[in-house]
């Protein structure tokens, strides 16, 4: 049974269609990512599922419960980290966790959450004394106080430095080990690729593709890119004739070629260099990323 089913979800603010007919399922125990640029409708979608906002139309079930009718029961079994919550300044980390735990019937011991979030040493620090990364970890810990079946993380690493981001990823990895269903929104490609079993790519209120990161890459951007230099330089027509090359362009004094068969093309590059009395150097190969997928589908870069 799917942990979450969303069918034809719509939500408008005035003339703006924030979410325009979104459908997807989240399987139990998977880490499901919603990837898209700012303003794509990720947060709105998430907040409707979390019972925080009302939808205009659509069907949503969470843990088999209807979002509109059973919101109270849903709240007991989900854990939510909102994008921008700042908590009570004058409570300590432990007190904040215990306070939020008191809202639920099912409660986890503060100790285990402090451990999970790597906050043991800061457990008696006031919230306003924490760094951005620590604060984020508190808000994730608070999403787990009721030992939820389904955890929602809305842009959990936005604004964090790489190290702090890494520690958030470690928490999500632990959640996967605990067999929780996790729904995470992000506009970071690497995050989606690193964390998510499946990803829904969202843009302008629509989900434009869903699948595992590999599936998406294979489907939309299967080519690998190889860059290299040839000394002395060799004419581009020679490069274009190399096995498997589908496209080429001059790049940094050398060339960049795209190919569906990277291994054969690599061999072809060295062969062509040899045949033309040149030396191939600075060879590097890059497989496509979800960024390329997004670019391919929307014609825009995700980072804009």
């Amino acid at each position: 049974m799917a942990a979450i089913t969303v069918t034809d979800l719509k939500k408008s603010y005035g003339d703006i269609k924030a979410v325009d007919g979104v459908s997807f399922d989240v399987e139990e125990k998977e880490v499901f990512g919603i990837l898209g640029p700012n303003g794509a409708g990720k947060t709105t979608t998430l907040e409707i599922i979390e019972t925080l906002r009302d939808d205009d139309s659509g069907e949503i079930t969470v843990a088999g419960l209807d979002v509109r009718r059973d919101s109270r029961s849903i709240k007991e079994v989900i854990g939510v980290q909102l994008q921008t919550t700042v908590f009570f300044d004058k409570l300590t980390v432990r007190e904040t966790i215990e306070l939020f735990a008191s809202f639920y019937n099912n409660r986890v011991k503060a100790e285990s959450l402090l451990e999970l979030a790597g906050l043991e040493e800061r457990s008696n620090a006031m919230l306003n004394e924490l760094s951005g990364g620590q604060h984020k970890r508190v808000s994730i810990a608070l999403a787990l106080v009721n030992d939820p079946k389904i955890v929602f993380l809305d842009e959990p690493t936005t604004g964090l430095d790489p190290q702090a981001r890494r520690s958030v990823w470690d928490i999500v990895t632990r959640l996967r080990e605990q067999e929780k269903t996790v729904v995470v929104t992000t506009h970071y490609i690497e995050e989606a690729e690193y964390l998510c079993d499946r990803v829904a790519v969202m843009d302008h209120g629509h989900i434009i593709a869903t699948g595992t990161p590999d599936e998406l890459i294979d489907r939309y951007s299967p080519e690998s890119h190889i860059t290299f230099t040839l000394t002395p330089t060799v004419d581009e027509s020679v490069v274009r004739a190399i096995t498997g090359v589908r496209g080429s362009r001059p790049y940094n004094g050398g060339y960049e070629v795209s190919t569906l068969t990277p291994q054969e093309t690599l061999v072809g590059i060295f062969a062509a260099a040899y045949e033309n009395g040149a030396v191939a150097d600075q060879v590097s190969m890059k497989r496509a990323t979800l960024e390329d997928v997004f670019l391919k589908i929307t014609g825009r870069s995700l980072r804009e």
Partner: protein
Amino acid sequence: MSRFFKFMGASLKMLYRDRMALFWLFLFPLLLMLLLGTIFGKSGQADISLGFVDLDRSQISKGIESALEGIEAFNLKRGTEKELLEELGDAKINAVLILESGFAESVTQGKPGKAVIYVDRSSPNVSEIAASTVNQVLDEIAREIAARAPGGRPVPRMIDVEQKSVSSGELSYVDFIVPGVLAITLMTSGLMGLSLDFVNYREKGILRRIKVSPLPLSRFLGAEITAAMVMSLIQAVILLAVGKLVFGIDIRGDYLSMAVVVLIGSASFLAMGFMISSLVQTFKTAEAVSNVVSFPMMFLSGVFFPLALMPDFLASVARVLPLYYLGDALREVMIKGNSLFSVWLDIVVLIAVGLACFGISVRFFRWE
């Protein structure tokens, strides 16, 4: 229930850790009270205004009247017994002297003349001075007159003054200022405390985070409001205790009635604060609006100075401000020891204002 107390405990804990809030909630009202009490508390010794009723209408009584007029400390006011006692009741004069009919006759016969002096027992200092001065003066005058009267002979005690008292409820300034400062404190705590916290919680997204938890809004609000009311009782106890220790104010009210008035007043202003926080968008606006609401009330509601000292139109302004009713109720119940029933109008007004504000807050409440 445990959720409720958990949240309430957390609220109180946060407040305790907020030095700024503690200053405004506790220290500031105390300083205000001490300052006002010290500056104005001792300056009430003006002339004694004495109501004079001459029922005897004799030469002797006329003589006494003019003699009293000649005394600088006295401000003589004539009128009927009824009028003057009423004025005494309103604290417009300090004492009323009544020379009973047959006064002159008694004196000339060498018997003590009958006179009654009414004083205001609410201000014992002034009353005592007034009574003893009047006694002394009367005695002297009567002696003189009796000595000069044909066949008169001096008697040990010429005048039999009966002292009676009424209560105007007029208070010394300190008696006045303590409930006044308490009223202001309850108002500012209501307008500035919890409601601003709420706007803050909303801006920070804490309210939204609570909304995705199963904690019902009513439980959350209830816990916060209860915590605020507990604070208001503590404020009242501290202010009254210091008022009693430092200025020796006389607290005549029973504790239950006092607590009821404090809680109703506190709830009413909390509701007003909530209304403001529901209607405005940002913390800054909420703060500004709360100031705009509370400052005029502070100065126009007759909590620092009696309405009697204000021009009539300002006094009528005071009567539309809720703080006036809280100040009045606190004064009546705490200092004068009147019953809750006697301040029913104040209580009705405060409850009505509270309910209206609460209704509006609920209508416009926003999670974000």
